[in-house]
């Protein structure tokens, strides 16, 4: 807990928040698209896990590989 108390939160929040928001936008768009798309390249539930849990790289992988409908 000492680690967290040492951090000056007031200074960090305006720097960190935009990044988190951007990452969230990417994640949400990927999830919305996954729900709407008919068929993905590979099982859908696997892509859901990848998008949700693989930070940043997951949504990118989904857009590059997962959306390719044959």
């Amino acid at each position, binding site marked *: 807990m000492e680690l967290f108390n040492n951090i000056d939160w007031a200074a960090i929040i305006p*720097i960190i928040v935009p990044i988190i928001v951007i*990452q969230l936008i990417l994640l949400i768009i990927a999830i919305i698209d996954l729900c709407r798309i008919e068929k993905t390249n590979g099982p859908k539930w696997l892509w859901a896990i990848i998008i949700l849990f693989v930070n*940043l790289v997951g949504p*990118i992988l989904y*857009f590059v590989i997962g959306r390719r409908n*044959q």
Partner: protein
Amino acid sequence: MNQWMVLFNKELVEMSRNFKWIWVPIVFILLAVKEPLTLHYMPQIIDALGGLPEGAVIEIPVPSASEVLIAILGQFNTLGVLIIVLTSMGIIAAERKSGVAAIILVKPVSYASFVTSKWTAAMLLMWVSYFIGYVASWYYVVILFEAVPFIDFFQSFLLNGIWLSFVLTMTIFINSFNKSPGVVGFISIAIIILLSLLSSLFSRWIEWSPSLLPTYTSTFLLNNEIPDNVLSAVIVAIIGMIILLICSISIFRRKELA
């Protein structure tokens, strides 16, 4: 011209349906913004995670703003190039594989406008994302480090962007004679690595190589003066792009007619 605009519009619509207009800029922003943040918080990160013995003192010099900009451009030139190749590797190849290209080219559409409309749309996407990412990182550099004059920022943006455009054009060129997007991506990455390697090994002899443009950009940012060879590298890059485009149109025509 009218026909070209229709094809170009089709490309833009397809890109927005694929969400490319959203995720590519976001990825460029995240790539670029990561660098100033980690550089700025490096001492704290080492403190928190390093597990250094008590009393160990590490002096990390605070990097100057231009060093941070160089690091950001380095991100664009590695992971950014990868993203560019990944987004454009299927641009013609996938359409040929799925037969869409054949459907379009049955109509009286010239091969030149087919290829150049795709090229222009891909260039537009790349430059917009690259610009947004670089501006976002500039904001962080100004907040966390020191102010960088906009003119320096903009010149380095243009110089490095020419190399990225060259990469994009080459990917489209390889698209014209290969049907599988994966193979296209692989060949493009291999050629880019080879080019960068060769021109950094023999930089004395091939000072005009477009792949030296990132190096020239960092020299420019550090010394604040444009190196002598930049002009030749830029001209070679632009001529190279034109030649690659013409070649890809003619190869594509021959392949498609065969």
